[in-house]
Structures are given as C-alpha cells and as structure tokens.
C-alpha cells in the first residue's frame, strides 16, 4: 500500500501585485493547514475526516474566500457553499446559500452522513443545520473590512471579481488593478453583471 498524501488550496487567480507580506501570510496559513492534516494522517485518521478538519481550519481563518472572509454578494451579504466526497463508496454531501452556518464543510458532511440526500440549499440547509445542532453565527461574523472594500471596488468597476487578493494599498492602487476588463469564459465580465 502506497503512503498518504495531502494537498490544500486557497484559491486560484492571484493578483500579480500581491505584496510579499501578504504572500508570506498566505504561505504560513497553507503550511499550518498542511501540518494539521499531516498530524491527523500520522494518527491514522481516515481521509474523509482529514479533508473536513483541514477545510474547517481554512474556513475559520479570514485570509481566503470561504467561511469567515467570504466574498460578498451584490447586497453586501455572505452566501457560502461547500461540498465533500468520500472516494471508496463515492458518498457525497453539498450545501449552498448558507448565511449563518459557521463551518459549511461540516454541514456538507452531515448532509452526506445524516440525510438521504446529496445536496441541501438555502432555507432547507439552514433548517437542517438547526436540527443537527451545528454552530451558527450571525452573517456579520463572515464579513471583513477588506471584503467590504473589495465589493466597493467591484461595484465601481461594475464587475464580478474572482478570488483576487488585491493588495491592501489605497483604493487608487486597487482601482488600477480592475481597470483591465476582466474576462470570464472569454467574454468581458460585464456581460455577466446583469446575470
């Protein structure tokens, strides 16, 4: 039997101007999450428990776009989604439209383990969370100053931004980074704004 292996990601599409200190911050978080997973694998935890454990850690840290630190909707709120899948029997669970569940990935796990379904969304998912007794917080918990600024930028540019971590510098610098019209699927992003 081959050994264990693990990989984590914090999003693709990184602003080329990301300052070094922000890059170091991201690398530290990735290394911390990797080590969390490695310790669990060395203690013989099954893969499905390890992926949930690591993603919970990433959701709780505001650095990346998930859980606390999630991107904001056009209304300035947070709507989160997550999914999990266990290879051996291809069992899976997914959730969307969560606004108060502290760790979406754990609710996806409960959908997989404790419900006859594969996917629950919006009010149904929130109701299931209450029944399962998972930790729930108000939507403000997920909103960060930085993302309020990013949403302002996106609205000014009338665009939809990906997992860009735009430097903390003043808005003038940030607005420069959204001047180049963003493409999505080969079309100007503004095509999608009405969508």
């Amino acid at each position, binding site marked *: 039997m081959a050994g264990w292996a693990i990989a984590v990601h914090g999003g*693709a599409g990184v602003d080329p101007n990301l300052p070094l200190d922000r890059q170091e911050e991201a690398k530290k978080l990735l290394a911390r999450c990797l080590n969390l997973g490695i310790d669990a694998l060395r203690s013989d935890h099954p893969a499905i428990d390890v992926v949930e454990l690591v993603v919970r850690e990433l959701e709780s840290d505001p650095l990346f776009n998930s859980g606390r630190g999630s991107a904001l909707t056009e209304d300035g709120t947070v709507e989160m989604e997550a999914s999990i899948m266990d290879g051996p029997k291809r069992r899976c669970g997914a959730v969307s439209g969560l606004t108060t569940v502290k760790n979406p990935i754990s609710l996806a796990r409960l959908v997989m383990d404790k419900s006859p379904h594969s996917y629950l969304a919006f009010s149904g998912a929130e109701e299931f969370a209450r029944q399962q007794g998972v930790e729930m917080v108000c939507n403000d918990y997920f909103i960060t100053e930085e993302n309020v600024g990013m949403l302002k930028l996106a609205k000014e540019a009338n665009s939809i931004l990906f997992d860009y971590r735009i430097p903390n510098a003043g808005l003038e610098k940030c607005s420069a980074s959204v001047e180049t019209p963003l493409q999505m699927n080969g079309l100007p992003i503004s095509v999608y704004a009405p969508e």
Partner: protein
Amino acid sequence: TVGCVVVDSQGRCAAATSTGGLMNKRSGRIGDSPLIGAGTYACGLCGVSCTGEGEAIIRGTLAREVAAVMEYKGMGLQEAVSYVVEERLDEGKAGLIAVSSNGEVACGFNTTGMFRGCATEAGFMEVGIW
C-alpha cells in the same frame, strides 16, 4: 475558495471544497464548489478539488474529468491534471489539486497563480503561489 484532497495510508481518497463564491455576485448564484463532479470529486482512483471561474469549471465537469481520463485513458495523476487544465477549460481560468490512491499528489492551473500546499508520506512538502 479553499479545498483539500487527501489519500490516507489505506489508499482511501477524499475531497472537500468550500467558498464564499464571487465578489459582487447575484444573490442565489451557485458556483462550481458545491457541484459534485465539477468543483469536487473523489472515487477509488483519486480525489480532486477545483477553484477559479466557476462557470467554466461547471461546463467542463472538471473534477470528474480528471478521474475519467485516468479511468478510461489510463493516464497518471499529473498527466491527467495537466490534460484537463489544458484541454477542458476552453477560455476559462481555473486551478485544481488532486491526489491518487497510490499516494501521488498533483496540481495544475492556468491562472496567474494559485495558493497551494502539498505533502506526501515520503517526506515531500511544498507551499507555493506562483
């Protein structure tokens, strides 16, 4: 978007992905992360987690595609990851991480960087952005 893929010492694969979606998105918009087969997939062969332009990942059923080319074309993990990122995204921009049941780990992206880290029991460990 964040994700984790793992193969344990019994050779069992798993994948998990979580996200807040796109900044300034319409309320009610669903991306690739919660869609099994698009943003997340795991089977007896591999575990995959994707990130990037959700609409392109959904259209390309990107995560399942890695498992499919391994299953039907007999590709190895890194070859499958590279093939899928190069051939299945059209003009879309995305990245993915993957592990295989024989303890390999791989990643691929066509964006300007992806926050990622990987490690194996043999002692390999890497954290990268660009």
